[in-house]
């Protein structure tokens, strides 16, 4: 499974959104309805799935689906 698809799967399950809503430019809060509590748990899901640490500062920069994808790529995660 591609990195994009794995991330999409996590977002769909955490935020209870439809897969087609999870586009590159979709904003996690404004478009996908995440609140601050969802964001904390979403970061934990990403940390557990990809086995990395996401600092609060890094987490705050992750506003869109696309930003999550590129962040994980900068951490050397490809799939």
């Amino acid at each position, binding site marked *: 499974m591609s990195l994009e698809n794995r991330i999409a799967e996590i977002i769909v399950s955490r935020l*209870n959104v439809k897969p087609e809503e999870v586009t590159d430019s979709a904003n996690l809060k404004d478009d996908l309805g995440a609140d601050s*509590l969802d964001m904390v748990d979403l970061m*934990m899901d990403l940390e557990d799935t990809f086995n990395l640490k996401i600092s609060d500062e890094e987490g705050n920069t992750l506003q869109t689906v696309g930003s999550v994808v590129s962040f994980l790529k900068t951490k050397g995660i490809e799939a």
Partner: protein
Amino acid sequence: MSDKRVVITGLGVFSPIGNTTSEAWENAVAGKSGVRKLSRIDPELFTSQVAGEVRDFDPSELLGPKNARRNDRYTQLAMAAAEQAWADSGLDEESADPERVGVVIGSGVGGMETFENQHAIALDRGPRRISSMFVPMMISNMAAGQVAIDLNAKGPNFATVTACASSSHAIASSVDAIRLGRADVMVTGGSEAPLTMMSIGGFCSMKALCTTFNDEPEKASRPFDKDRSGFVIAEGACILVLEELEHAIARGAHIIAEVAGVGMSCDAHHITAPAPGGEGCARAMKMAMQDAGMNPEDVDYVNAHGTSTNLNDINETAAIRAALGAQADRVLVSSTKSVHGHMLGATGGMEIMLTALALKNGVVPPTATHESPGEGCDLDYVPGTARKADIQCALSNSLGFGGHNVCIALRKYKGDS
């Protein structure tokens, strides 16, 4: 004292004997037990293996997947019951000013399942993996908070936590709120989801649960019976819509019964055992009658707390005698826990609902499993079969660990009286 009167104009329930008011009422009257072999958790773990479970409850379907994921089962049950009660009342934002609608929902322990699941994660993977939803899901006031969001109810809002008297305290506080003019409408009752390792295990350790009918679950909850051996743990939610009488009449509401009086007291005696002679319970009953303007001879029916434990049933019987005097030999007494089990923080709501329907329908639901009275249990417990009776005034008792006693007095509603 305020001259405002309080009536019940909506009911909602998810319980071991049904997920609608009519189903629960019919099963209570038919004496059809909802107690089964425990299935939400491995029964072999416990000495008591029977329970009253809410069946066919799909929170995702009823509340949406997001609400289902972000709320403990106790809150889910409360939300579903409150939606039903609100629909039954016919109220909306036109007929009730949202700022004049309050919510008080009791629970004995709140989000026990959430607590246990997250504690397991914390032990296994460390406290940094505790979900951000842990605290809001676990706290015992979230049912009241979440129901207010659902109904846009912006009036007084809180939770009551008094073990098995929680929902009766919620209803009592709601009556007060309406009488004091703090709200026109109160959405109130209780919710509990205690079928978890720690709850069942804890009550088993107290020797509070029935262990002698594991192979005959439907007979396990036997209030006032000589073969009773403890209560049957159960889950569920029951929510009532209480409304100021003139408000209800003005909008042409269907009125189920009047909540005429409230009594409450404490034993100040022991953390779990009732006071000798049911002294505290008797005082709550007298206070409720006085508040309602009822004399002992007016009381036709007592919906007993009747847990099916040795101590409760003897002492509550003594309390009914102390409170009603000679009327105790005439009054009908039943414990519907015989069919729905002990729903703990939700049980008062359930029983006050059934008492209201008994007044409305002129039928007293039985103590369905009662066969032979236990020692010291010498009242008419309406054993086995429902009784047709044109009852006018009724009392419903709820008693909680901590020595908390609540009695709610209800009166048949007969229009302009």
